[in-house]
């Protein structure tokens, strides 16, 4: 058993391919983490059930496709609305009572995730389900070094689009100003006449809806399990925390983490890459706990 069995030697074309896959990974990280960035950034709420919102989005897509025959593209906005409503209910019911207690929010949302996972398992059973890939996405790009499936390409495009839309909402609309005001200082914003609680509810619902749409996309990529969400939650949190809890930060960190993950996977394999990446992140956070890019926010 030697070191060489772990390390793949460097070859240009496969390495370039892994860089491209890194873009795909980055887009997945970004979409998964976007909702969390907004929720944690605006409200300081650690939502451990975020992965389950993704899972709910995937299962909702499955239901819409299988029982109502709704085409894939139409599913996206429907899932957004559905999961946003669920998120709204959860915020009103549970999260609202825990605003000043971040650790308790973490634990309570973990309890919630247990309930959601088991609930879905009871309703749908534990066997894997599938979201059908639509015909117009059912292709593979095979250029010189690029091997990409249509779904992954769509995810990349979607990530850019949704990032742009969210950026527009946050920085070019009055609603965005209100959200950013609440993010910076809830009390001051409230004293300016902004209904902070309503902003919180809307933000949480938006973040949940984004997670739901992420689920739709990921469902087309992978099979559906009741606990598929837990595969995304740690990565999503790391993207958020490394990026500095801001929109631009998350873009950068998802890009960096996605590329690094792909590069490490090329040299070793997926699981060992995860170990290296997480260790690097932990070390990085020790030296720069505020993340990559910090906008002015209240100290959490």
């Amino acid at each position, binding site marked *: *058993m030697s070191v060489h069995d772990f390390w793949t030697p460097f070859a240009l074309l496969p390495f370039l391919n892994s860089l491209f896959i890194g873009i795909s990974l980055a887009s997945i990280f970004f979409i998964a983490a976007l909702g969390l960035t907004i929720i944690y950034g605006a409200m300081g709420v*650690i939502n451990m059930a975020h992965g389950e919102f993704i899972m709910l989005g995937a299962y909702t897509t499955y239901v819409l496709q299988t029982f109502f025959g709704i085409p894939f593209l139409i599913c996206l906005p429907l899932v957004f609305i559905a999961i946003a409503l669920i998120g709204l209910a959860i915020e009103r019911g549970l999260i609202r009572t825990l605003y000043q207690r*971040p650790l308790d929010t973490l634990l309570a949302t973990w*309890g919630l995730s247990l309930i959601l996972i088991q609930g879905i398992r009871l309703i749908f059973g534990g066997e894997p389900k599938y979201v059908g890939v639509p015909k117009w996405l059912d292709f593979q790009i095979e250029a010189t070094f690029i091997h990409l499936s249509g779904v992954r390409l769509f995810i990349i495009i979607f990530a850019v689009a949704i990032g742009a839309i969210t950026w527009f909402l946050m920085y070019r609309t009055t609603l965005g100003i209100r959200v950013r005001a609440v993010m910076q200082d809830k009390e001051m914003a409230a004293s300016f006449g902004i209904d902070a609680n309503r902003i919180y509810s809307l933000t949480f619902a938006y973040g949940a809806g984004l997670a739901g749409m992420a689920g739709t996309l990921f469902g087309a990529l992978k099979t559906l399990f009741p606990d598929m969400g837990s595969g995304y939650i740690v990565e999503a949190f790391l993207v958020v925390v490394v990026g500095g809890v801001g929109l631009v930060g998350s873009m950068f960190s998802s890009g960096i983490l996605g590329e690094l993950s792909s590069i490490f996977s090329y040299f070793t394999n997926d699981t060992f890459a995860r170990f290296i990446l997480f260790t690097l992140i932990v070390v990085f*956070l*020790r030296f720069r706990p505020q993340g990559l890019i910090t906008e002015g926010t209240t100290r959490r």
Partner: protein
Amino acid sequence: MNGNLYHNRKAQWAVYITVFALLALLPTYYDNPFTLNQFARYIVFSITAVSVSLVWGYGGILSLGQGIAFGMGAYAMGATMQMQYQDPESDPIPTFMLTNELETLPLVWEPFWSTPIGLALAIGLPTFFFLVFGWMMFQARVAGVFVAIMTLAMLAAWYSVVYDMQPFTAGFNGISPPMPFEIFGTQIDPYSATSYWICLAFLTVLTLGTKLLLHTKFGLIVQAMRDDPERARFLGYNVAYYQTVLFTLSGFIAAWAGILWVMIVQFVSPTSMEIMLSISFVIWAAVGGRTSLLGAIMGAFLINLGQSYAGDAFQAYWLIIIGIVFIAIVLFLPKGLAGLFEIILGKLSGQNSKANQGA
């Protein structure tokens, strides 16, 4: 405080000693080997709950990565037990390594030929890791939620390593030492009262030792840091140092749990480092009462008993019940069932001292 019995030190020690004495008498009533092994497992889980209670309930550090110490201790113990079975001349290499095309025993496995060294590594490695990791975190003043996320990420990272390094750790199949643990020339049957008492002995020593520590000045300082780290800093205490020591201690306790676990189940796999297991440790401590070591022990017992005897009817709903109970505890009873007990005792003794009202 008025006369709330809950806070009476003598009463506390009496209760602790009574509980451990009752637990020690258990094998005289239940001598079914399967039951004994079952209860030994609960005792091991209680030890992990105590480690969480120490670092979270008393230190205010929510560590979701106790599984790292638990798993490291477990794997080291598994390696020790495996090598006890292997013979240096005729059969030096464990089967799973041969299946993974290893021709010689890897260097990292060599120390485990010797049981004392194996045990020392099983305790030393996790404790050392927690020392370094804790120092790294707390020196940078990482606190609260970030500690939780970092310990979680570290746990996930270690899970990946252990899962992946199949030639070294047998991957997801896990290591199954064919023989029970042997020490001082005797084999310890996992289904006997002996192994149960060994686990109970460790639980008693670790719990009472921790309780003694918490009654010292160290314990008071650590609780002060839990309540307000900034204030402690301004009072001149080196918060990072105390937090690191506490964190390392909790790793030490969890490592013993890992060692005992493999002794009684004769199996170790990546599940010992699963996220769900580490969070279960936290749930047990939270439900039982994280600010009380005995509460954490009771929490671990209650939930695991419930899980075992819930029966097929409840099994499907068990996770939902746990989730609801956990949310309820977090929302309404932050100090867990022990806290409920404290409130009840407070009400009972409060009624006897009307003079304290308005004080």
